[in-house]
C-alpha cells in the first residue's frame, strides 16, 4: 500500500510517516508544493497538520487543494489538513473559542469505517488554535469533544476524512487502529 504524507509543517508530520511505516505501508513525506502529477500512483494520502493557520495563511497550504480535487484516492486530513479540507469544500475554519492542547476525550456519534472496532469514547491528544466552524455540504460530523464539535468528519461522496485530533501521537488511544482502518479504506478503494 503506497500512502504518502503531505508536510504542512506540523510537529507530528514525521510521526504520521512513522505510524504508516510501522503498519508496513510504503510511505514518504513530501513537501506540500509537490506537483500533483508525482502523486498519481498513490493508494492514499495524509494531509498533515501545521503551524500555518488555514484561514490566515492559505498560501502556506501549497497544493493541498489541487490534491483534493485531482486525486481520486482516500485522503485523511489531520488538524490543519482537516480544517483546510472543510474550507476547500465550502465549509469554514475559524479560531476556536476554546483551543485544545494535550489531553481531551472524543465521542463518536456516527459509526464509520475509520472508527471500526473502537469504543464510543476514547482519549486523544490535541494541539490546535483553529477549528472547523462550518461543515461543508455533503460532509457529516463523526465525532466531537466537549470543546470542539467537529473532531472528525467525512465526505458522503468520496473517501475523504478529516480529524481535528492527532491519531499519530503515542498518547492518543487507538491511534494506530485509526490508521489501520484508513489503510483498509485505501485497500478497498484500490480493488474497487
Amino acid at each position, binding site marked *: 500500500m503506497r500512502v504518502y504524507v503531505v508536510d504542512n*509543517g506540523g*510537529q507530528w508530520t514525521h*510521526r504520521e510517516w512513522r505510524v504508516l511505516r510501522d503498519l508496513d505501508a510504503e510511505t514518504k513525506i513530501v513537501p506540500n508544493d509537490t506537483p500533483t502529477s508525482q502523486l498519481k500512483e498513490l493508494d492514499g494520502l495524509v494531509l498533515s497538520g501545521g*503551524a500555518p493557520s488555514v484561514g490566515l495563511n492559505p498560501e502556506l497550504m501549497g497544493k493541498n487543494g489541487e490534491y483534493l480535487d485531482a486525486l481520486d484516492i482516500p485522503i485523511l486530513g489531520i488538524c490543519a489538513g482537516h480544517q483546510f479540507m472543510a474550507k476547500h469544500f465550502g465549509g469554514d475554519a475559524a479560531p476556536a473559542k476554546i483551543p485544545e492542547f494535550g489531553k481531551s476525550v472524543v465521542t463518536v456519534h456516527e459509526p464509520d469505517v475509520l472508527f471500526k472496532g473502537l469504543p464510543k469514547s476514547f482519549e486523544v491528544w490535541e494541539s490546535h488554535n483553529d477549528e472547523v466552524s462550518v461543515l461543508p455540504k455533503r460532509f457529516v460530523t463523526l465525532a466531537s469533544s466537549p470543546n470542539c464539535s467537529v473532531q472528525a468528519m467525512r465526505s458522503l461522496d468520496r473517501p475523504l476524512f478529516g480529524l481535528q485530533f492527532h491519531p499519530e501521537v503515542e*498518547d492518543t488511544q487507538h491511534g494506530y487502529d485509526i490508521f489501520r482502518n484508513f489503510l483498509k479504506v485505501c485497500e478497498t478503494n484500490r480493488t474497487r
Partner: protein
Amino acid sequence: MFDPQAFIDEQVGAIKAGVEGKAIIAASGGVDSATAAALASRALGSRLLAVYVDTGLMRKGETADVDATLKELRVNHKILHAADEFFRALKGVMDPEKKRTIIGNKFIELFEREASAFGAEYLVQGTIAPDWIESGGQLRDRIKTHHNVGGLPEQMKLKLVEPLRDLYKDEVRKVARVLGIRVAERQPFPGPALAVRVLGEVTPERVALAREASAIVEEELEAAAKKGLMPLPWQYFAVLLPVQSVGVHGDQRVYGHTIAVRAIDSVDGMSGKYSKVPDEVLDRISVRITNEVKGINRVVYDVSNKPPATIEWE
C-alpha cells in the same frame, strides 16, 4: 515494522561508503550518541574519535560515567574539560533560546578544533527525529533549538553524518539493545544540559543547586520504581526556578530558592503525560531536597502534559 538489525547493517554500510578518511563523533554518553558512536565505530574503526565535552553543566558523576561507557564501547575517545569557557559564554544570558544557541555554537567550535587536530573532515552526531523537528525550519515552527541542529553554523567546515535522523528514542533503544549498549535504557538528557534546567542566569553556584536536587530526584524515583511503587518515568529531574520565597529554618526567616520536580511518561518525547508519582515518594523528595540542598526551601511538582508544556522548561 522497524527492524533494528537491518537498520544496523544498512547504516554501517552507508557510513563505510560515505565517509572517506577520518571522522569525529560528538559523544554525550547518552543512548543516541553512544548508538551513533557504535555504528560509526563498526564502520570506521580507528578512523573514528569520540569527543566528549565536560561543559560544567553536567549531572553528578556524569563525566566519569561517560568515560566508562565510551571505554566499554571500545571507541577511541577524548574528554575535553571546558567548564570555564561555557560559563564565560553564558554569563548574564537569561533567554532560553540564546542559551541554547550559545551552547550549540560553542560545541561546534570545540568539535571543529578537535577535528582539525585529528585530521577529520566528518562530524558524526546522534541527532534523532525530535531534534530537527522541534528546531523548525521552512514551514515548521521552532519550538526550541536543539544544540546539534540549531547550533550549526551556515557555512560548516565539517561534513555531517547523522545515522539516527529518522528514528525516535524508542527505536534508538531497540538498536542500542541489539548492539549491547549499557546506556540503552538511560533517560534522555538535553544537550545544553543543566543550563536549560536553571531558569534565569547560568552560574556555577546555581547549576550546583540544580545538580544536587536532580541527583535526589533521580535516586528517589529510581528507588521507587525498583520497589514497584510506580513505573520508571520516561524522564525525571529537578529544575531551579528563578523564584524566591519565604521559609522558616530553625526559628529564623529564610528567603530561599524553589525547585520544580518534573517527571513525565512518554514513548518518544513528542507527547507525554506527567507521571503520577505516589505522595510518599514526592514527600521524601521534598524533605530531602529542602534539607540536603542548602538554599532551597520550597519544592513544587509539575503537573503539565506535553502539549501544552514541553518536557524541559526551556
